[in-house]
């Protein structure tokens, strides 16, 4: 695409939520055991012990349920140096990610190894788990691994291993059922060139749209392509801030984050000169008076509060003109 005259507007979106997952009996027992500082794996159809456990055998797809307790120390199978850790990594200073095969396991787990530089890392080196002071039944209960000859590691020992009925009783005692994983990420959201033009105009108190070259219809806000014909839109058109209510709904339900006390009206408003209605508020009259065809005009915020946002229009209010005839907006419902 060609370089635009003005760089499109952009701003970060910061997403944050908790993933809440049911974990099933295998992962649930593994995580429940981690909370009590024990590490278990599961025996596969070929006899291999998988740590972390898998629910189904990767080769035969058989369900797996024979648990085996393994050691807290093991061998680095491979590693990679993380010079620039990302948010959420087990360590915020440079560290190594490694595949670690714990004593008694046949598969390797991904985890962090805390050392002061890549020169301290080597394939085959022995490492030992360092446990969190407070465990939560998550993979992070092992905060990281350290070389087995470190002082931190020297303090650690494996618990007396459980097997058979004793292990089953231990695992059945407090398996995890629901895992909550916090998630956050930042995405730099860019408006399109056309949307940016709309936002820059509305910061000056003007409403602009763009015309579809095939149908001649004017889209407000404008879009990068005509959504009906998939062709680029490039003719900018200024439209009025007066329009017609095409349809509306009376909001009676309170919800978190609501800014206006119900009841109030959300409406589609077909601005004069536009072919797509804009969603906005209709205030300034009793909600019961709002009707299809009602003529309304934008009520702008004070000029000093204008920013690149449709919020510069505080709401729409009735103009008092006679209603628009149905035929004038029937095509835009």
């Amino acid at each position, binding site marked *: *695409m060609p*370089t*635009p005259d003005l*760089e*499109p507007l952009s701003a970060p*979106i910061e*997403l944050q939520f908790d*993933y809440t*997952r049911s*974990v099933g009996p295998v*992962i649930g027992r*593994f*995580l429940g055991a981690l909370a009590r500082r024990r590490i278990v794996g599961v025996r596969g159809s070929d006899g*291999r012990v*998988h740590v*972390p456990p*898998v629910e189904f055998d*990767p080769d035969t797809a058989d369900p797996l349920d024979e648990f085996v307790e393994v050691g807290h120390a093991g061998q680095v*199978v*491979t*590693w*990679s*140096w*993380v*010079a620039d850790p*990302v*948010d*959420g*990594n*087990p360590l915020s200073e440079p560290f190594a*990610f490694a*595949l670690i095969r714990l004593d008694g396991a046949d*598969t*390797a*787990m*991904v985890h*962090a190894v805390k050392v002061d530089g*890549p020169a301290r890392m080597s*394939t085959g080196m022995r490492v030992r788990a360092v446990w969190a002071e407070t465990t939560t039944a998550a*993979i992070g209960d092992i905060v990281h691994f350290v070389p087995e000859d470190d002082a931190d590691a020297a303090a650690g020992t494996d618990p007396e291993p459980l097997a058979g009925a004793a292990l089953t009783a231990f695992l059945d005692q407090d398996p995890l059922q629901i895992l909550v*994983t916090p998630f956050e*990420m930042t*995405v*730099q*959201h*860019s*408006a*399109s*060139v056309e*949307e940016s033009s709309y936002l820059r105009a509305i910061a000056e108190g003007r409403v602009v749209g763009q015309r579809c070259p095939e149908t001649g219809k004017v889209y407000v806000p404008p*879009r*990068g*392509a*005509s*959504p*009906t*014909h*998939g*062709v*680029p839109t490039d003719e900018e058109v200024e439209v009025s801030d007066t329009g017609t209510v095409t349809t509306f709904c009376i909001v009676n339900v309170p919800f978190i984050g609501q800014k206006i006390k119900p009841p109030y009206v959300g409406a589609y408003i077909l601005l004069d000169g536009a072919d797509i209605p804009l969603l906005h508020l209709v205030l300034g009259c009793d909600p019961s008076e709002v009707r299809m065809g009602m003529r309304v005009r934008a009520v702008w915020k004070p000029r000093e509060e204008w920013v690149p946002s449709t919020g510069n229009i505080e709401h729409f209010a009735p103009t008092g003109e006679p209603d628009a005839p149905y035929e004038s907006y029937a095509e835009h419902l």
Partner: protein
Amino acid sequence: MTSTQTAARPGALTPETVTDDDVAVVGFCQSPSVRRSYSTTNGTEMLVPIFQQIYKDLGITRRDIGFWCSGSSDYMSGRAFSFISSVDAIGAVPPIDESHVEMDGAWAMYEAYVKLKTGETDTALAYGFGKSSAGNLRRTLALQTDPYVVAPLWPDSLALAGMQARLGLDAGLWDEAAMAEVAARSRRDAVGNPAAQFAGFRAPDGTVTDDVTAEQLLAQPMLADPLRRHDIAPVTDGAAAIVLASGRRAFALCDNPAWITGFEHIIDSAELGGRDLTTAPSAAEAGERATGGDVAGITMAELHAPFTHQELILRSALGLDGAADAVAINPSGGPLTGNPMFAAGLQRIGNAARAVIDGGADRALGHATSGPLLQQNLVCVLDGRR
């Protein structure tokens, strides 16, 4: 599992002998690969020009397309159902038959291929797009891993690939020089590709030369030991589109369609520590089925390997190793010179198909991968069959 291969019945295909079961790539277009685009995360701005180009190339309008399928990711754009907005680039009036995969566009193409095989339509357009620059790509990609015991540690894509590379280094399967040679060849080849993100060698003083050697690259520092910058595909924004057609329709749109004679995709276990990461069994199996076990006639292959060592794994898995002289690998420069997420795999097939359509190759192979560490692999064999 059923196989879709038709490699067992070679021979000339003409407008007289073609059937609706024969499906071909008839058009391909890609956006320039760039480090940062002015596009929105729904890709519309990158897609509109390439759709316009592909209609022009084929002499069709959007109304001639019977089915649409896209590949992209909500995680990249940071919102749910982000791909819906990209439909603006198609134009959805009157209503269209459209679908989406949360994978590389190559899998969207597979869905389109199946749609054509059902006989419900004779033309389809598959596209893929990704604005990788919008977030922290190497971190976002950690979300492809197991959500219970791996993803909570946020193992970034470079760390995972570094562990895979070291396994092969330690085992003596490849060395740093072999990895650098892949990068050097890719950068030299990219000189001829205007869509590539970069080409040649940029010296520390900023001067860029077309020629580049493995030795020059190996002199650079480690980025994610054992990976240097040249081992890693660049963060890239971009998009791609392919038009498929079946039967006589393919001949009507293209003088020399690139017939799909094998198309397979297979997945390996998600348990990273449970499989041998120095191999790609699913790539080997998909390649075996798609080629019918015969790679002899293939003279050109585009492999979707976002890390140098992964090209070495794939060449071995697909039986293209040691055939460097006989088979041109990634003559476009490949993903190491432009790797738009969710479009790069489709670009590989598109480049392979273009070589057949243009007559540069009689038989070409396109490969795509999705998921961490070559977990899922797709192979498409394209045949001139004149």
